[in-house]
Each structure stands twice: as structure tokens, then as C-alpha cells.
């Protein structure tokens, strides 16, 4: 295995880390926003993000994933979660696995072991993206300002996740609980999305959670 794919621990054991929204100083802003905020934002930062590719139609693949993660492969446009680990369908042969910070190297090795011999790909993309959690009664309206995808609960129940157009760019929207949504954003676009969200939620009141 090791001579076929180059896998190594990319996250240092101890070093100063800066999430994609580090520069926004969210920690300092926490608690300072509107008291009755319609929208509350939290960056779920520095998690382990792995892109998993494989053949969904091959039972050995689904079986291997289950063996390594204890999670069933999610079907189209859904995500499954257990504790701090979530597995999301991105495409018919592509999933996003989010694991606690620092565990991504071990998880990748475990997956590779379980999927030994199969044509798969696992790529660590932890540094390239982040999750923004939005909670509150007005989140749906902020999303409606931003994306042409229908976020009404009849079309977008909790447990659903879609890649779509957002403002003038793209991201993944994950509906994780009734009033809780997550935006999966790319690092280089994070400032743009952060500006956009501040603007779009201004009329509803915005609060930050550390």
C-alpha cells in the first residue's frame, strides 16, 4: 500500500493553527452581537476533512467503509453522522468524511486498510475548507437571499446536504437539525462568504458563537 499512495501526517503535533476564518477574529466577536439574533454563526474549525472516492455499487466498498467508520454509505444528497464523525454524499462516487481534528491521518489509514485492493482515493483536504454553522430562526431567510436552491423543509429536511450555487460562488449546504445548518466553504472564499453572511443577516441580527 505504502508504495502505491503517499500518505503522511500532515497536521503537526503542536503548532499554531489558523482556520480559514481566523482573520475574522470570531472569538473576540463572540457574545458581542445582537442579543436577540435571528442568526448565530460558529466556525467549526480545524476539523479533519477527507474526500473519499470509490465504487458505491461495489458491496466491498460500502462494507469496507462501514467496517472502518461504523457508518453506512449515505445515499444521494444525504449525510449520516455518529458523534463527531459525519459522512456526506457529494457525488455518486464521492463522499466527504469529517472527523475530529487530528484524527484524519489515523482514519485515513484505517480506511485504506479496510479498502485494501480496491480502486479508491482518499485525500486530506482539511486545510482547504471549513464548516460554518448557522443557527437561529432566520437562517432560512439568509439562505434564501443567497442561493437559488429551495431550502424549504419540504424540500430540504434535516439530514440533507447539497452542493449548490451561493451568492456568486459555490458551496455545500448541510441541514443538520431543525434550525441548524452548516455551510462547507473553501478556504480562499471564506472571507467573501463571511462578508456576504454578515450583510445578509444584518436585518435579522447576527451573533457569533466561539
Amino acid at each position, binding site marked *: 500500500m505504502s508504495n502505491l499512495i503517499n500518505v503522511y501526517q500532515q497536521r503537526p503535533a503542536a503548532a499554531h493553527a489558523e482556520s480559514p476564518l481566523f482573520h475574522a477574529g470570531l472569538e473576540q466577536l463572540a457574545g458581542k452581537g445582537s442579543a436577540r439574533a435571528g442568526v448565530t454563526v460558529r466556525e467549526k474549525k480545524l476539523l479533519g476533512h477527507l474526500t473519499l472516492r470509490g465504487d458505491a455499487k461495489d458491496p466491498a466498498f460500502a462494507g469496507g467503509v462501514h467496517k472502518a467508520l461504523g457508518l453506512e454509505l449515505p445515499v444521494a444528497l444525504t449525510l449520516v453522522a455518529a458523534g463527531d464523525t459525519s459522512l456526506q454524499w457529494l457525488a455518486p462516487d*464521492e463522499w466527504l468524511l469529517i472527523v475530529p481534528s487530528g484524527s484524519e491521518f489515523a482514519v485515513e489509514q484505517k480506511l485504506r486498510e479496510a479498502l485494501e485492493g480496491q480502486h479508491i482515493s482518499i485525500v486530506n483536504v482539511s486545510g482547504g475548507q471549513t464548516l460554518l454553522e448557522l443557527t437561529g430562526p432566520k437562517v432560512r431567510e439568509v439562505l434564501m437571499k443567497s442561493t437559488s436552491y429551495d431550502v424549504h423543509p419540504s424540500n430540504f429536511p434535516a439530514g440533507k446536504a*447539497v452542493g449548490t450555487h451561493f451568492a456568486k460562488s459555490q458551496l455545500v449546504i448541510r441541514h443538520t437539525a431543525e434550525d441548524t445548518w452548516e455551510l462547507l466553504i473553501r478556504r480562499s472564499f471564506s472571507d467573501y462568504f463571511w462578508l456576504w453572511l454578515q450583510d445578509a443577516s444584518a436585518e435579522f441580527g447576527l451573533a457569533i458563537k466561539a
Partner: protein
Amino acid sequence: MLHIFCPHCGELRSEEEFHAKGQAHIPRPLDPTACTDAEWGEYLFFRDNPRGIHHELWVHSAGCRKYFNATRHTVTYEILETYKIGEKPSVTAAGTAEKKASDQGVTA
């Protein structure tokens, strides 16, 4: 703005999630070197421009990033079907003409 059914996501999505990639079903010649310049030019540069049914290649770029084909009417912009790469269209200009003829009682 078109509303396009992505056969991979299994949903209708807005056009802004997609990119159009031109005419579908133009396979790359298996042996390009065996092509004359004229044949290669035909493959490379010449495309149909029908008034009516047209098969097109699209990619769901903001969604699953998968390519698929769409049968679209170039006058009304109606999308009659979308189907995965490797599949054949069920709505074709020839088939439609045939059906029209048989509806009008014309038999071959």
C-alpha cells in the same frame, strides 16, 4: 433560467449550478492518427445547429461535478430528458418525426 434535472443528484436544479459543454455524442476518434485532416477537422470544429431537438453535454459544476446529457428543444428551450453518459437519448429528432408521421396516419 433553465431548470435542469441532474440524473446523478436526482433533482431539478437551477441553471446557475451547471455549465453547458456543447453538443453531446461526439466521441473522440479511437485512432486520431488514422484521421485525415478533413476528418479531424470535422470532429474538432463542426457541430450541428438544429432548430428543434438537440442533444447536449452539461456538467453539474456546483453540485456533483458529473457530466450528463440533455435533450433540449432549441426553440422552446424545453428540456425533454437528461441522461447519463453512455446512455442513449429516448427523444430524438428522428423519433419525433416518426411519431408525428404515425400520429397523422402516415405509414412507412
